[in-house]
C-alpha cells in the first residue's frame, strides 16, 4: 500500500528514466521505432501491470515506441494498470485476426513513416505482415538497443530489486519452516506459493524452488519438484525467487532436513561457499565473463549444469555466463547479476547457493541476505 507521504519507490520517476534510456539508445542506433513483443521489454518501455502468464508467448506487437513523438503505445483494451503518461489514445486493442492488429498499428502516429524499425523477435507471420505497416522501413534487431537501456540499473530499479530480494527471503523463511523429513518437494512448492501470495505477490519467477539431494547414489541438479518425501538428514536445496513491479530477485540456500547432516556435508557447504564467493568477487566493473569462468575453474569444481551467472532485471537478461557462453561479456557499474554455485558429492548430496549481486564502482554488493548455514 502507498505511504501517505509518497514514500517508497517513485514509480513515475522509474518509468521516466527507463523511457529516457530507451530513447537515448534508440537515438544512438538511429532507430525510428521499436515494435516489442517480449514481456520484459514491454514492461520496461510501458510499465503497465498486465496479466502474468507462465511460459513463453510467441512474438506479437504488444508495444510500440516512436522516437519522433517520444510516445509509448501499448496493446491494452483497458486503462486499468496503465500508467497515466500513456493516454487512452496510445492504447490499441486485442485482435485475433492479425490483419486487424496490423490496422491498429498502422494508425500509430509516426510508425508508418519509420525508416529504421527494431523488433525484439519475429515470427514468420509477423515477418510477413509488419513490412506492410512500415513500408519504407528496414526491420532490424532491437536487442542491442534494449540491452543497452536495461543493463545498468537506476537507483529506483535497484530499490525494486531490493524489495524483490526481501520477498524472496520471506519465501526462503517459509520454506525453511516447512522443511522437515516426510514433507514432499511438491508440498514445499505449495507452501512457497502460499507465502508469496500472502505477501501480496502471487506471481513468481519460477516454481522450481525446492529439491532434495540423496545421501547415496548419484546426485543431480533437479528443476522439477516430485512427490518424493524428503528423507531424514538429506541436504535440500531451497531456491525461491520473487517479483516486484516486474523485477526479479532470487536466492538459494541448502539446509539439512532434520536429523544429522550427512558425512561430508560441512565440507560440501564450504566448497559451495568458496565457489560462490569467488564468483561474487569477480563481479566488478571491467570484469569479463571469462574472469568469472576462470574464477570458477580456479576452485577446481567441475562446471555445473546451470549457468554461473546471468544478468537480472525484469527477469533474467544477457549476459549468460556458463554453458560455454559469456566469455566476452564485460561487466559495468550498475549491472545486476544472479550468481550461483552448485557442488555435489556422491555419498553426501548436493549444495546450491545463489545470490543477487549489484556491480558498483567499489566492487560487488550482494543484495540478497541469508545465512550460509546447513540449519
Amino acid at each position, binding site marked *: 500500500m502507498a505511504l501517505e507521504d509518497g514514500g517508497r519507490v517513485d514509480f513515475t520517476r522509474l518509468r521516466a528514466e527507463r523511457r529516457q534510456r530507451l530513447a537515448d539508445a534508440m537515438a544512438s542506433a538511429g532507430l525510428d521505432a521499436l515494435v516489442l513483443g517480449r514481456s520484459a521489454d514491454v514492461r520496461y518501455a510501458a510499465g503497465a501491470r498486465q496479466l502474468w502468464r*507462465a511460459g513463453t508467448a510467441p512474438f506479437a506487437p504488444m508495444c510500440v515506441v516512436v522516437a519522433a513523438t517520444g510516445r509509448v503505445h501499448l496493446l491494452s*483494451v483497458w486503462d486499468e494498470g496503465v500508467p497515466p503518461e500513456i493516454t487512452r489514445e496510445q492504447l490499441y486493442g486485442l485482435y*485475433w485476426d492479425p490483419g486487424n492488429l496490423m490496422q491498429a498499428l498502422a494508425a500509430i502516429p509516426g510508425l508508418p513513416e519509420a525508416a529504421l524499425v527494431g523488433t525484439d523477435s519475429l515470427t514468420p507471420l509477423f515477418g510477413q505482415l509488419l513490412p506492410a505497416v512500415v513500408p519504407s522501413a528496414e526491420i532490424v534487431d532491437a536487442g542491442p538497443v534494449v540491452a543497452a537501456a536495461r543493463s545498468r540499473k537506476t537507483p529506483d530499479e535497484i530499490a525494486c530489486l531490493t524489495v524483490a530480494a526481501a520477498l524472496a527471503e520471506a519465501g526462503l523463511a517459509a520454506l525453511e519452516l516447512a522443511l522437515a523429513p516426510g514433507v514432499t518437494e511438491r508440498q514445499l512448492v505449495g507452501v512457497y506459493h502460499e507465502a508469496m501470495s500472502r505477501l501480496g505477490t*502471487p506471481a513468481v519467477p519460477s*516454481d522450481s524452488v525446492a529439491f532434495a539431494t540423496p545421501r547415496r547414489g548419484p546426485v543431480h541438479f533437479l528443476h522439477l519438484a516430485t512427490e518424493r518425501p524428503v528423507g531424514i538428514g538429506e541436504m535440500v536445496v531451497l531456491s525461491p525467487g520473487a517479483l516486484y513491479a516486474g523485477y526479479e530477485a532470487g536466492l538459494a540456500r541448502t539446509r539439512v532436513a532434520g536429523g544429522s547432516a550427512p558425512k561430508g556435508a560441512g565440507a560440501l557447504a564450504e566448497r559451495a561457499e568458496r565457489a560462490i564467493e569467488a564468483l561474487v568477487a569477480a563481479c566488478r566493473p571491467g570484469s569479463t565473463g571469462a574472469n568469472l569462468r576462470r574464477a570458477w575453474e580456479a576452485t577446481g569444481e567441475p562446471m555445473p549444469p546451470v549457468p554461473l551467472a546471468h544478468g537480472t532485471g525484469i527477469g*533474467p537478461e*544477457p549476459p*549468460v555466463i556458463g*554453458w560455454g*557462453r559469456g566469455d566476452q561479456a564485460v561487466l559495468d557499474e550498475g549491472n545486476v547479476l544472479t550468481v550461483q554455485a552448485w557442488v555435489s558429492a556422491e555419498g553426501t548430496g548436493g549444495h546450491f547457493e545463489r545470490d543477487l549481486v549489484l556491480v558498483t564502482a567499489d566492487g560487488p554488493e550482494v543484495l540478497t541476505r541469508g545465512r550460509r548455514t546447513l540449519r
Partner: protein
Amino acid sequence: MTVDDWAAGATVGGRPLPAAPDLARMRVERRRRLQHQLDAQGLDGLVLLGSSGVSYATGATAPGEDSPRAGLFRAVAVVVRGDETPHLFTPFDDGAPPDVPADHLHPPLLPELDDGIEVMATALGELLPPGCRVAVDELTHPMKRALTGYDWCDAASVTGPCKVAKTPDELACLRAAQRINELAMQDAQAALHPGARQSDLSAVYLRRIFELGATTNGIDPIWQVMAPTRDANPWTLHGDLAYPTPTTDRFLREGDVIWVDAGISFHGYASDYGRTWLTANRPVPTARQQAQFTRWRAVVDAALAACRPGATALELCRAAIAANGGDRPWIEHFYLAHGVGTDSAEMPLVGTDLGESFDEALVLAPGMVLVFEPVIWDEGAAGYRSEDIVAVTDDGWVALSGDRYDPFGLAA
C-alpha cells in the same frame, strides 16, 4: 457420477475416453500427427521454441516460469520428418520423458542470444541441413542471422491441424487438469469472506493446486470485482467490459461480485476455471442475480444443443445470441468459446473478430474442445460469467468441467 465415469461412454473417432490419460500413448499419437502433417505439407522438419509447442511435440516438462525466464532459458524441440522421436534441447533434463533417448536429448540452445547461436546453427544443421523446408514458430534475430539457407514457414500450419482435435488421452488429460483446478477452487471459495484480499485467495488456491498434483500454474489467478454499472468498471477502448484485470492486494468487500478465472497445467495441458462468486459470509444470490445465472445457463444450453460434429461455429453463435434475446452474449475482445489444449486459448475460436465467414467455415469435429464463456451483463446489477468446457464427441459432446456453480443454482 464418479471421476472414472466422467466420459459416460462417449467416443471420439470410435474410441472410448479413458478415465486417466496414458501419457506414453498420448505422446506417441501426437508425434504421429506431427509426422503426418510434415508428410502432407512436404516439409522436412519442425522447430519449436514456444513452451506449449515444445510440450506438445516432446511431452517434456518444464518448470512454470515467468515469461522473461521461460524465454531466456528455453527448451527447443526439433522434429525431423521420418523420425517419430523428437529432438529436445533443454536446460531441464529431469523433465525429458523416458521415450526421448540419450541421442535425442541435448544441452540447451539459447536462441535469444547472439552469443553461442552458432551452436544452434550446427545442431540444427546436423538434423536439417540448410536448404530444407522447415516450419518454425519463432525466428529470433540471432536465429535469422545464423540459421541461413532455410526455407522457413510458420509452424502453425503444422501444429494447428494437429492440435485442433484432441486424442482420447488428451481429453482425459484436460479433464484431469480441470478437476484439479476445480477442487483447489473449492478451498479458495471457502476462504472468500469480507475482508479477504485477492492475494489471500491466490494463497489458498496456489498451495492447493500443487498438493493436488498440478504440474504448474498457468496464469495469475483472477478474482475481478465487477462493479454494478458499466461506467464504474474500468474504461475500455471498445466500450464493452474490461476482463480479466490483474490481481492486486485489494480487499474484497461485502456484496462484491467476483468473476473468477484461473488455469493450471497437468502434464502440459491447460485448464480454465470460470465462475461468479459473491462476497458474503453466507452468500445468497438475489432474485436478479439468480436470473442472470438462469440466462447464462440458457445461453450455454442453447449453444450446446447445437454442438455436434458437422455443426459450424456460426451456428453456435446464432444459438447463443437467440437465447440472449438477440444481443451478443460475449465480450467484444473475446469470444463465445475458445479451444484449450497445451495452450490456454487456442483453436477453435468462436465469435471473434476473425468474423462470421471464419465462423461459418469452422466445422466442429470429434475431439475438438470448446470452453464456452458467455457473459450476461445486467446494467445496474453487474452480471454473471462462468465457463463450461466440453469435448465434441462422435455423437455430440461430453462435459470436461464440473457441474457446480455455487452459490448459484445447479446445472441443467
